[in-house]
Each structure stands twice: as structure tokens, then as C-alpha cells.
């Protein structure tokens, strides 16, 4: 039972990371019907920018670790969001009217560009996050010791997701994003500037991915320029599990994938962790190709 609860909470923590990254895939897909394959690398950039900010400004000494981490996280989110907007302008907008495949190739190119830039700037070795920033303590519930860090990570992810959900459901801009995802032409007839909506989506998605990057750095303590590849792939699977294009679906898919992976690692074999994730993808694609919350897509005739 102890093992189960530990793995469950760990799975929820890592799943919430997947969920944050998956939101970027799903929002971009929703509005542009494009898989942004460079999204995993934006997550890596977030992790590295977080590292740089944590070790270079001495902010931690000035305001204390919790406030410093909060400020740095917001800075990272803003910067990675701006990189996302730039990415769309440079790599996708010129190809808007081109063949769908051209944009996919451009995305893969952007991914290679980002990961190699990180390697050239930070080096190819693993880099270590400062390890004395977060509390090492545990809280004990019913004789179970759960690390505080894990709970904090879950809390922050859920706050970010709740903010996004409220933004998309309750605000005028959020409604416009949903409208543009349903029918871009009709959205333009409503007077919605779809280019602006796309820029907003390309800010929010990467900003959440960047937040996930710094959270992974803090939680696992080390980062690598290729980390975005596997995390990106897992998050993409999470988005597909939940139903790509569907925002609550990405959150749900991330959590489900994290828990399955974590329990699989404990009860089957740790070495099979990634294989289990891909197995889940295959099962979903066979049984329910539109994902758990995905709608049936009616082709226009």
C-alpha cells in the first residue's frame, strides 16, 4: 500500500508536468491544426533559462528561495512565451498557405535548431540545478511520508492549469481562442484578428512548457539539452490520450499517463517505463483514436 501511494503521488507529480507541456501541443493544434514539434525544446529552454537565472543574479540570497523561484518562474514563462511567438512568426507563418507537410518539416528543423543551440551555449553534459533551494522535508499523512517538493509541484501545476482553464472559458479572448479553433473563417467574420489569437496561443503554450522545464529542473535536479525530446514525446502522447485540441483532455491525459507510467515502473519494471507509455498510446489509437475527451471529427463534405 505504501509503495502504491508513493508511486501514485509521484505519478501525479510527473503527470502534471506532462499535462503542462501537453497543453502547449493541444492549444496550438486546436487553432492551427499543426503539431509544434519544437515544443519539447521550448520546455528545455525553460529549464536552462531557469538554471541561468537561479545561479547568476543572486536573487535567492536577496529575497529568499521561495520568492526568488516564483519571480524566476514568471520571468522564464515570459521569455519562453516570447520565443514561442517568434518561432511562429519565423517558422510557421510564412508556411501558413503551404502544404501541411512543409510546416511539420519546419517544426522539426526548429526543434533541431533549439536543442543544438542549447548544446552550444551550455555544453553537452548534464547540468545540475542548485540543490538547496527547496525544502527537503516530508509531510506525514497516515504514516506515509510524502516529500513537500512533490506536493508543491502538484500545487503549482494545478494553479497554472486552473488559471488557463478560467482564462479560456471565462474571458473574451479565451472565447475567441475557442472560436478560432472551431472555424477560423467564421471567427474572422466576427471581427476576431486570428493572427493575434495565434500569437496569444503561441505565447501561452510555450510559457506553460517553460514553467514545466524549470519545475523538472528543480524536482529532478539536473537538465540536459536533449531532455525536451522525451518529455515532448510523452506530453504529445498525453495530448493524444486526452484528445488533441481539447484543453481539459490534455490535463487529464497528462495525469493518466504519469500515473500509469509510474505504477508500471514500480510493479512491472522500471526499464519498461517508456515502453509502457508508448503502449498506452497504441492502445488509445486503436480503441479510441479521438482520445478520451476528443470529439468525433465530422469531415466537411
Amino acid at each position, binding site marked *: 500500500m505504501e509503495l502504491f501511494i508513493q508511486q501514485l503521488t509521484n505519478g501525479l507529480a510527473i503527470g502534471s508536468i506532462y499535462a503542462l507541456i501537453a497543453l502547449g501541443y493541444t492549444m496550438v493544434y486546436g487553432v492551427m491544426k499543426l503539431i509544434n514539434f519544437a515544443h519539447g525544446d521550448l520546455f528545455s529552454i525553460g529549464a536552462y533559462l531557469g538554471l541561468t537565472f537561479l545561479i547568476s543574479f543572486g536573487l535567492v540570497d536577496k529575497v529568499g528561495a521561495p520568492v526568488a523561484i516564483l519571480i524566476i518562474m514568471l520571468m522564464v514563462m515570459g521569455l519562453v512565451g516570447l520565443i514561442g511567438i517568434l518561432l511562429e512568426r519565423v517558422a510557421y507563418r510564412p508556411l501558413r498557405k503551404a502544404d501541411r507537410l512543409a510546416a511539420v518539416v519546419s517544426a522539426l528543423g526548429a526543434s533541431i535548431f533549439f536543442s543544438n543551440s542549447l548544446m552550444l551555449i551550455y555544453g553537452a553534459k548534464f547540468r545540475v540545478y542548485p540543490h538547496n533551494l527547496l525544502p527537503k522535508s516530508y509531510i506525514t499523512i497516515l504514516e506515509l511520508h510524502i516529500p513537500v517538493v512533490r506536493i508543491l509541484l502538484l500545487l503549482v501545476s494545478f494553479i497554472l492549469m486552473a488559471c488557463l482553464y478560467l482564462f479560456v472559458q471565462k474571458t*473574451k479572448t479565451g*472565447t*475567441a481562442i*475557442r*472560436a478560432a479553433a*472551431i*472555424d477560423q*473563417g*467564421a*471567427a*474572422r*467574420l*466576427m*471581427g*476576431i*484578428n*486570428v493572427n493575434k489569437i495565434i500569437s496569444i496561443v503561441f505565447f501561452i503554450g510555450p510559457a506553460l512548457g517553460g514553467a514545466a522545464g524549470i519545475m523538472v529542473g528543480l524536482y529532478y535536479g539536473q537538465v540536459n539539452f536533449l531532455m525536451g525530446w522525451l518529455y515532448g514525446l510523452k506530453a504529445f502522447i498525453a495530448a493524444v490520450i486526452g484528445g488533441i485540441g481539447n484543453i481539459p483532455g490534455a490535463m487529464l491525459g497528462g495525469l493518466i499517463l504519469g500515473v500509469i507510467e509510474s505504477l508500471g515502473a514500480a510493479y512491472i519494471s522500471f526499464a519498461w517505463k517508456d515502453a509502457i507509455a508508448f503502449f498506452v498510446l497504441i492502445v488509445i489509437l486503436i480503441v479510441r483514436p479521438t482520445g478520451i475527451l476528443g*470529439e468525433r471529427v465530422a469531415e466537411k463534405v
Partner: protein
Amino acid sequence: MLKVENLYVNYGNVEALHGINLEVQEGEIVTILGANGAGKSTTLLTISGLLKPARGQIFFGDIEISKLEAHDIVKLGIAQVPEGRRVFSTLTVQENLNLGAFTVENDSKIKQVLDWVFHLFPRLKERRQQLAGTLSGGEQQMLAIARGLMANPKILLLDEPSLGLAPILVKSIFSTIREINQSGVTVLLVEQNARSALKLAHRGYVLEVGRIVLSGDAKKLVSDPAVRKAYLGG
């Protein structure tokens, strides 16, 4: 109010409009008649800025709008109810209406127009929390028109509002269009249902494969032998 001059539009490599001219005066209902593929929807989409003309100009008042972005054109006061309704089916009726008012900044104005469209279409008020995709075809058409009105337009472009509706619904939609016009909104109506459209409109144009072949008062067009033969069944 709206003036289209010598408009050429291409769809890919195909020229869909070969130099059309038309004009709508303030307060009028003007209809464009024509068969499938004549270029009616192309004309409206070009006015709204979703298609760009290869040649020619479109004036709204004194402003040349053919190079403007679609969202700026809506802001000037040109709203379109597109062919096939195209309501946002997974959003609620209320959300669809709110999106119609996307360009309107003034909240009390939005409230005022909302009351008006609920007066025109009481059914929508009952269903405001329902998803638009669950409405019947007629109700979706009402929603599409209401959504267009929410932009508080000076001119409303309607693309085949009778499409796929039962005759009794067509009648009610058309009488609502008259009511909308009487409260001061100019209407440009594209229709295949020539009989109903000419009964409603002040003036009409007949479009055939990208060219205007006839135009004039609606009463005159109804009795025109060519129109009777081609569009009114003899």
C-alpha cells in the same frame, strides 16, 4: 453606402468573378440572385475581406476596404452571416452571441442589441445556455443572423439564409429580415430562392458565371421574361 467596382477575384487559378459592379444604398435591401457557382458567395467573402480581389475596388462610404483585414472591415460596420450558418457548434448560444459582439467595446450597447435580437428571436433566449450544435437547422440560422446583428452593423450581408429550411421557416426568416431592415440596417442578400428574395428586396442583381447579366428594381426583375424563365420556373 457600399460600392463594388470592376471586381475580379481568383479562386486558385480559376477566375471566379470577371469584373462585377454593384451598389447598395443606405436603407435598402438588395439581393444578388444566381445559380450555384455563379460567384455569389465569392462576392460576399471578398467584401468581408476573407478573399482578396485580383483587380477592382470596394468602397464602404468613402473608404476603400478591399485591402483591409477582415477584422477591420467588421469594425467599420459590415457583418456577414455566412453560407451554411457556421455557428460555433461546441459553444453555447450565449457565447456565440458574445462573439458576434467581439468588436463592440460599449457594454451597454451590447446589452441593448442583445435585448433586440432576443426580441427578434425569442427562441434563442430560451436556449441561451444550450450548445449551438444542438439547435435545429432553423434555430441555427436564427442564431447566425442574431450573431451577425450583435456586431451592430450598418450593413448585414446574408448568404443564402433560406438554405435547407422548410418553406414555413423561410417565410418567417424573411419577414424577420424585413423587420431588421426597417429598424435601419441595410441588407445585401444572396439567394437562390429568387421568388422570396425578389418579394423582399428593393433592387436585385442577377449573377451568371462571374458576371452581372441583369439588374434593376425587384418588381421589374420579377416580371422580366429572362428571370422568370431561369429562376422563377417560367
